[in-house]
């Protein structure tokens, strides 16, 4: 189990040895982590999800070393192996565990390489959307008045367009601005920017709503009476109390971001075809579904479902674990 051996219950009061605030903060952080670790070990669902996710992440991260083949090295492809069914079916070959596609590429290896792109784009886009949305939502909710009106009207306008359209717009602008040959190498960044920018209003709305509820509570007034500055109140008081719904939203959004990325790739504005993502694999396999070669689309799909499910279950556990009332 990938859990550090921190004590299950944090020491009652931090030991009075360290003198610097930094050391003190580190100690506090460790205590907080150990509480989390304790709650993690007591939740079998979280442990299983984490193991599954770590396997997925590991397979994706170390694909060049772990994968049995390199599906994108044209020299190793053999067209005679095209459309080989997976293990257990008549005609299966031992070196292709999950079969091959129409060009003789190993499906398992393609999944590993595809998950790399999908996870990278999904995670980075969600992080970008969260950074944008949470900070704008906090400012809108805490500031109120004209700032709130302005930020939320911008969010409303953006929400009235489909996210795909925004992403297409960002991508189009990037293509127009950047030189033609530069686009291929930074396609992933453009994709992250496009999906991230198109998703921030959801976070801003969620955070603004919770912020306005929390803002009226007396502990915020108490902090103001003590003399804490607005940024300190937002960062240290409001943020931990509004982050719960955001985490759940973020996990769901990773799946949405991966799908958006697949859609964009399908439309030809995503990652270049030489570097397909999971979504691209599903789309390619879709063409063979009715001619009997179901494994080309089902296995990448299953990989996507397992990955998203593991992330969602972990997000659920995290939400409960971060809520001190449920501890």
């Amino acid at each position: 189990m990938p859990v550090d051996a921190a004590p299950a219950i944090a020491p009652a009061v931090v030991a009075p040895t360290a003198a610097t605030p930094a050391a003190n903060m580190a100690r506090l952080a460790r205590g907080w982590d150990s509480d989390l670790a304790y709650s993690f070990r007591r939740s079998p669902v979280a442990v299983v999800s984490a193991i599954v996710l770590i396997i997925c992440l590991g397979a994706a991260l170390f694909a060049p070393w772990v994968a049995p083949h390199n599906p994108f090295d044209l020299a190793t492809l053999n067209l005679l192996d095209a459309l080989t069914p997976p293990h257990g079916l008549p005609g299966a070959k031992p070196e292709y565990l999950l079969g091959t596609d129409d060009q003789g590429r190993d499906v398992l290896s393609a999944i590993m390489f595809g998950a790399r792109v999908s996870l990278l784009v999904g995670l980075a886009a969600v992080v970008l959307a969260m950074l944008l949305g949470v900070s704008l939502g906090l400012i809108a909710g805490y500031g109120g008045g004209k700032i709130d009106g302005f930020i939320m009207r911008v969010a409303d306008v953006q929400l009235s367009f489909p996210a795909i359209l925004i992403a297409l717009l960002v991508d189009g602008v990037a293509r127009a601005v950047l030189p033609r040959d530069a686009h291929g190498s930074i396609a992933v960044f453009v994709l992250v920017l496009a999906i991230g920018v198109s998703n921030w209003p959801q976070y801003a709305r969620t955070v603004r709503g919770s912020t306005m509820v929390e803002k009226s509570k007396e502990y915020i007034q108490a902090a103001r009476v003590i003399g804490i500055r607005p940024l300190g109140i937002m960062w240290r008081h409001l943020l931990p109390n509004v982050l719960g719904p955001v985490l759940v939203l973020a996990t769901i959004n990773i799946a949405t971001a991966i799908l958006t990325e697949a859609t964009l790739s399908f439309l030809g504005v995503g990652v270049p075809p030489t570097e397909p993502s999971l979504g691209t694999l599903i789309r390619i396999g879709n063409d063979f579904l009715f001619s009997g070669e179901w494994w080309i689309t089902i296995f990448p799909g299953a990989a996507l479902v397992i990955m998203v499910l593991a992330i969602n279950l972990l997000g659920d556990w995290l939400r409960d674990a971060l809520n001190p009332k449920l501890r």
Partner: protein
Amino acid sequence: MPTSAQPLVELENVARYFDVSPPWLNRILERQRRQVLKAVDGVSFSVAKGETLGLVGESGCGKSTVARLIVGLYRPTRGEIRFAGRRIDAAGPDPAVRRAMQMIFQDPYASLNPRWRVADIVAEPIRAHGLARSSRDINARVGSLLEQVGLASADGAKYPHQFSGGQRQRISIARALATQPAFLICDEPTSALDVSVQAQVLNLMRRLQRELGLSYLFISHNLAVVHHVADRVGAMYLGRIVELAPVNVLFTSPQHPYTRMLLAAVPDLTRTGMPRTAVAGEVPNPLDPPKGCAFHPRCPYADERCRREVPRLKHVAGDADVTVACHAVEEGRLAQEAFTAA
């Protein structure tokens, strides 16, 4: 009663209006007018060092707004607030004033950040004002504060939800005391608590006042509680103080018809048999307060002058400590015996 030359806190003709107009579009389309809520409208009083001033009144009379004006959560629309002779209403948050003045809130379930440990909550003012640098000093200070309010220093490792309402209010008090303030504003600190716990918290507050020489502004709608803790009491009605008197005077011979009505409404064993005037009428809409004396629609003694002219807070003949804002009292129209003779 402690009296000193210079009052610790002074309010002079302080007012706070809130703009509660409907949104601009509604005003244009539905021809609605701007609306201003006069939550506090010309309040003056002072609190001496070591004194407890009680502030009573019905819900919505502006008691809590007064508290928030003094601690600086709101800026006054007009008037002056002075702390130890210095004006604090115009200037921005002055750390020295913030330190000297702390507040205890009504709801012990909402006034502590649920995600912070108690030790961090109590340490926040210490860290914010840099009162102790090393974590050893901060921990020692937090521990002694928790013990001072009757909790154990080991309780600092717990979260607020692990405590009862009374204990949480003690944590609030510990946090308020962390900056070693001279003045505490208590906004209904016991109204969310059980009666037995109320007494414990009130006695704690009185003990701390004795030990630390604190001054309190004690806001409550519970007259029994105010009677127990206050040295002087101000009665508020619709944003104004209608009567300000030493606690014994106010509770035995109230002058203003509103104060009389409030006191008469309190069930009290010792005053059994006293003729009780029923509380008549409702608090008027504060958006559209009555002209003249705001109390006149509910007042049995109201006459033409009361409907026209706003009464000023004036000293009552014969007692320099008592001030009342009532035309009837001033003109001697009110029979003094009506209340006290019973």
